[in-house]
């Protein structure tokens, strides 16, 4: 893994998926796989092999934390940084979300012009953690 290239976005709102795709593809030059829910993400992750996952917290089929737990059970997803996207930014809620094993948290609404840049530190952190673990 030499650079951040592939990002999986898991978000149930189609408007947010579209702005995520614009932010990461058009502005950030990344390859993106957008999923409408946790089950979709679990189905697509093994083939897409993302370098990083952006994961909504409140989703109707599987919640973000539930999806993260299930993703972690996939062999292909071991060590892949997962960043929650949420409006819940109170410190105790942030801490609670991070305890699920996420690498970090992006607060919605995000700036579409800087998102690709904003997620890179999480990927770098995750890469370092993966190297340390390996």
């Amino acid at each position, binding site marked *: 893994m030499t650079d951040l290239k592939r990002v999986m976005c898991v978000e149930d709102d189609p408007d*947010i998926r*579209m702005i995520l795709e614009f932010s990461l593809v058009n502005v950030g030059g990344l390859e993106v796989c957008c999923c409408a829910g946790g089950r979709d993400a679990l189905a697509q992750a093994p083939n897409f092999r993302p370098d990083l996952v952006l994961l909504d917290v409140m989703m109707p089929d599987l919640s973000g934390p539930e999806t993260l737990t299930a993703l972690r059970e996939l062999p292909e997803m071991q060590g892949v940084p997962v960043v929650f996207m949420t409006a819940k930014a109170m410190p105790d809620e942030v801490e609670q979300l991070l305890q699920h094993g996420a690498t970090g948290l992006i607060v919605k609404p995000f700036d579409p012009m800087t998102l690709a840049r904003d997620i890179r530190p999480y990927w770098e952190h995750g890469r370092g953690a993966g190297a340390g673990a390996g």
Partner: protein
Amino acid sequence: MGAAPAPAPAEGVSAGVDDGRFTADSPADSPADIPGNIPADLPAAQRAAFVQLQRRFQCGLPARRLAITGATSDGALQSALHRLAGAAGGYGFTALGAAAREAERCCAAADAPGLAAALHTLYGLLDAAQVTVR
């Protein structure tokens, strides 16, 4: 706790796209604040793509409003508000997103008077965000 009745649409509000930049007549959370989110050096193709996305988002606002006014349970109302709050800011509608977030907060707290006031503000902003493309 149900959704408060919507106020009459604001009068004299229109906005449009001119040379790839939004122009607007509305002073309240209008697309006029959108260009502030777009870097001046953003390539023309990306700028045009973003403006297209903004227009698409605006076209979907009546459906979002219907989801709020037609919500038959607190859960459905909270979900519709949550989705709008998460999406609006990314498209530059910062006041609209904040109003939806406040309404969501009041709904979650079962604060009926607060919710009624927040929804009144929200409906006004939704009306102001209606776009006539020139």
